[in-house]
Each structure stands twice: as C-alpha cells, then as structure tokens.
C-alpha cells in the first residue's frame, strides 16, 4: 500500500443539526460524507464529480483538515492527518493546498498580489527578502502572470487572472497534493479552458497530485486520470474516464453521462436521455440501503435493505450497485 501518496479510508464527515445556544439539542445529523475510501498515486489526477450537495466539496475540505472528520482516516505519505493538532497540523499544511471555487472571495481584497504570494512563500520557511522576491516572481511566471501585476490588488484583475493568482498561492508552499474545488465553475467558458490547461501543464511540469472537484463531466474528463462519481456522500463509481464515461456501470452514472450533450449534432440527435425522477434526498435522513434506490429505475427489494459495497468489476473499474450483472 506504500505506493500511494494519499490513502483515504472510510472517511465520514457528519454535521450535527442543533438548536439552542446553551442547552443544545441535536435534532439531526447531516451525513455530508459517509464512508469514502480511495487511494491516489503520486502524480495522479482524480476527478471528483457529482451534483450539488453530494458532499464533494466537504470531502475535499475534510481531506485537507479544514473540516474535522467524524471518523475514518486520511493518510498522506504515511502520516495520518486526522491525528495532527494545532501547531503540528499547521506545519503539515505545506504538504497539501486548496484552490477555491470563487476567485473573487478567496483572495484578500486588501493585499496586493505580491503580498499575498509573499505571505504564502514565507508561511513555512524563513527566507531572506531577496529570496522571497525571486520565489514570487517565479511563481507569477509559472501561472502566466505579468511581473507588473505584483503591485496590483485582486479587484484589478479578471476572474481568470485571479484564479491564476490563487493557483500561484497554492503552489507557493510546494505542496505534494492540491485539491481544486470547482476551480473553473465561477469563470467564463472561454477562460475555463485556459485555467484547465494551466493546471494540466503545471501537473506535467511539477508532477502535481491533484484532486479536481467539479460538477461538469466534460471538464473532469479533460484533466483526470481517474474519475470518482459521488452521490449523497458516497462514491458510487470509480474508474478511468474511458470506463466511467463510455461504459458507466452504476445507474446514477448512466443518468449523469446521458445528460451531457454532444457537440456533434448527428450524435446529439440520437442521444438517449435517462431522466431520473425526483430530487436527491436530504442527507439529513438518507434512505436506508442503497442511497440511490428511491430514484433508481432498476431498484429491487434487496436494494432497500443493504448498502452496496464499492466492488471491482474488472480492470479496476469500481461501482457500488448490486444489480450490475443483470442490468448491463
């Protein structure tokens, strides 16, 4: 197991729903992430896809210990991050960074680009002023920012440029793992490709290990080595883009893939959509058994009783559904 950089084992993040300030009564639990396991090799890009509210952002933040996990473990290079507290955790943070969804909110409006990057560069290393300057200008060149941008404030940039600044900040501490939480969904479509290409380029040049969270399958397909599909706090399917997007096994993934329009009109005309009834259930009281069963067209009695495990169906193509032999 030591070949992997990151091992996530049975990770769960539950939020208590409470009422009252002093005498708290627990009126429910949101199971945002509920038993997620996967491993990531050095240099691999994992795409994490799923609809809004399925827990993909919470999973990302829990791996990075921005939200404390309820149970399970996150092991990065043999170190269990969940055990770290206080100063030790702060020190460890140079190993893993996050790129946030909204570049308008993730940069301090009162810090120039130089100050923001210099702060990140200095966060874990004592460096002379000249070294800091050198590092910052290297970072800016790496993400394609012009040197004169250093003196400017975030509001003077477009969304795409801001996201470049945010990427540079994440790179500043030389992390081993970066989690990008919907890094392009707040950007114009024309800019999205630039940022994705930048991430792909950085990944090639620096050997980054990346978890790329998105609700957009086309975006995920472009950059990922493997794709994980999440539904209501659980991974339902995991495999290469070819496996997951061309030959999906799980009924939910099938519905998801069938919703993506084709650019080719002749293929688009023959596209068969698989429409799911209803909305995803609330994660406060998730359905018993398979969480997808109330919306699944292939649901049988057994689905309501047992939680299907994530099983390898050949060539490391995992899916969590008990009916796969019958429906494919």
């Amino acid at each position: 197991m030591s070949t992997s950089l990151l091992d996530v084992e049975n990770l769960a993040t539950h939020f208590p729903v409470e009422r009252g300030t002093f005498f708290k009564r627990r009126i429910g639990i949101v199971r945002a992430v509920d038993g997620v396991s996967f491993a990531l090799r050095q240099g691999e890009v994992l795409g994490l896809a799923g609809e809004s509210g399925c827990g993909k952002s919470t999973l990302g933040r829990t791996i990075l210990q921005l939200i404390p996990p309820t149970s399970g473990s996150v092991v990065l290079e043999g170190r269990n991050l969940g055990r770290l507290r206080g100063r030790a955790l702060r020190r460890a943070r140079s190993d893993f960074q996050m790129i946030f969804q909204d570049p308008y909110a993730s940069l301090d409006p009162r810090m120039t680009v130089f100050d923001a990057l210099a702060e990140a560069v200095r966060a874990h290393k004592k460096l002379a002023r000249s070294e800091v300057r050198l590092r910052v200008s290297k970072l800016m060149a790496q993400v394609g920012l012009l040197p004169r941008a250093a003196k400017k404030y975030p509001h003077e940039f477009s969304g795409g440029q801001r996201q470049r600044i945010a990427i540079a900040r994440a790179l500043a501490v030389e992390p081993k793992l970066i989690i990008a939480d919907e890094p392009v969904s707040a950007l114009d479509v024309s800019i999205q490709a630039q940022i994705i290409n930048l991430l792909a380029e950085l990944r090639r040049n620096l050997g980054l290990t990346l978890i790329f969270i998105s609700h957009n399958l086309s975006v995920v397909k472009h950059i990922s080595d493997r794709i994980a599909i999440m539904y209501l706090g659980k991974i339902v399917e995991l495999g290469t883009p070819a496996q997951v997007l061309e030959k999906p096994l799980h009924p939910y993934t099938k519905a998801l893939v069938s919703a993506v329009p084709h650019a080719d009109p002749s293929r688009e005309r023959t596209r068969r959509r698989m429409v799911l009834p209803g909305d995803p259930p609330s994660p406060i009281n998730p359905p018993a058994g398979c969480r997808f069963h109330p919306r699944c067209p292939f649901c049988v009695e057994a689905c309501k009783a047992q939680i299907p495990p994530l099983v390898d169906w050949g060539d490391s193509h995992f899916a969590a559904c008990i009916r796969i032999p019958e429906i494919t």
Partner: protein
Amino acid sequence: MSSGAELSDLVGAEDAANTEERGTSLWRDAWHRLAKNRMAVLSAALLVVLTLAAFVGPLFLTHSYETQNLHLGAVPPDAQHWLGTDTLGRDLFTRVLYGGRVSLSVGLCATAVALTIGVLYGTISGFIGGKVDVVMMRVVDIIFALPFTVFVILLMVFFGRKFLLLFVAIGAVQWLTMARIVRSQVMSLRRMEFIEAAQALGLSRLRIIFRHMIPNALGPIIVYATLTVPSVMLLEAFLSFLGLGVQPPMSSWGVLIKEGADSMEEFPWLLIFPGLALALSLFSLNFLGDGLRDAFDPRAAKD
C-alpha cells in the same frame, strides 16, 4: 519557451524589488492615497494646529485663564482680548485654548481607549464564537444596561475625582458599541473564503486576525471612531455640568459652549468662538476619518 520564461523571471524580480521597500503594501499604499486626498490632508493639518495651539499656545499668552477682571466685564473682541472676555472678565482666547486641552485630550484618549478595548473584545468574541461569544456579548449587554451617570458617579466615589478617570469612564462606555460592530464584521469575515485560504496555508490565528481580519474590518471601525470623538466631547461637557468633570476655573469647550449659550443674546461671542473651535475640530476629524477609510480600501481608489 524556457528562455522566455527566464527573461520574465528576471524582469519580475526587478519589478518586485521596486515594489517592496518597508512595511506592508496596504499601509504604504494607504499612506499614498491619503496624501492625495486634499480634504483629508487639510483636516489633518488643521487638527495638528489646533492641538499645538491648545497644548503649547498658552505658554506664549499674557492673559491667565483664571484671573478675573470684574471691572472689565464681558467685552467684545478687540486688540487686547482677541476673542473678547467672558462675564467675569476672563480672556476668552486663553480659555478656549485651555478648554481645548481638556476637550481634545478627553476626545482622543477616551476614543483610543474605546477603540483598543472594543476592537480586541469584538475580534475575540467574533473569532472564537460559540459559548464564549454568547457570554462575552451578554456582558456587553449588562454594561449597556447600567445608567451611564450612575456608573460614573460610582467610579468617582470609589477612585476619587481624577481627571484620568474621566477618560476611563467615558471610554468604558463607548467601547461597547465598537465591540458589537467589530464582532459582526469579524463574524462575516470568518466565513469568507480568503480566511479559509489563510487557514489552509497554515498561518497562525494571530496572523490571520491581524493581517486579514482587522484590515478588512477597518472601514466601519474608523468611521465609528470618528463618530465617537464628538460624542465623547459632549459627554465630557455633560459630566462637567453635573460637577463630575472638569471644575471651574478650569474649562473645556463643552463647558464654554454651555456658558455661552446662557448669555448668547447679550454676548454672542461667548458662544460663537468655542462653538467654532469644536465645530472645526469635529469637521476635520470627520474628513480625516472618511479619508482614512477610503485610503485603506484599495477598491475605493479612483486611479
């Protein structure tokens, strides 16, 4: 491609070298922006002049603030008494300068006390949150509920009538609103992604508070501080009127204005000149406060 990258590296290093000299960019940029704001600079200059006049000016004056000249009575401004004299024949110019000592120092010191306590208290309460926040805010509510006059009288009874106590008493009441304002600012900032990003970088809590939270909460803090100064000066006048503040023959602008208002029909200069001094300093403070608020907000820059 690699040579191009290297070239821009070098240019970048040079460019960044010009950027960073001393201190952080925010404070340096704020200083530059403030220097460009003519009203703010003028106001700051006027405040300095007023302060110097009040604290150094009396050394060069021939008249004493307490010597009465009942033969003179109240005379209008002339070459001898630049601002005239009051009903007891005391030189008004001297008395306005001496009054400025009290008013300006009470106004600025009590505001500084309120600012310090309020910002620290509000930041801690808002940042930690939860039960700590609930307890801290209930303490604020309780102090708010105490009648101010009773509170000051209690202080005077326990600690004696000291001038310093005036600052403490007024500051002790004024920080409450400041704490509430800062707390609400910090609470909304705490959920911002750039604070989460700072945590993800592994920065310490103190650094996050002082480098990210307080600079971003600065706007409302400065505005409220400039509003606090005049209300503090008026509170001082009120306390002096009750006999809890400065005592005759010492004076303050608030006291002078009150006395002037009593006789404004016969001797209007007794109201006009102290009123002018107070109005001038308050206007300057407001313009300076607005200038500071804009200076600390990079988005407000016009260029």
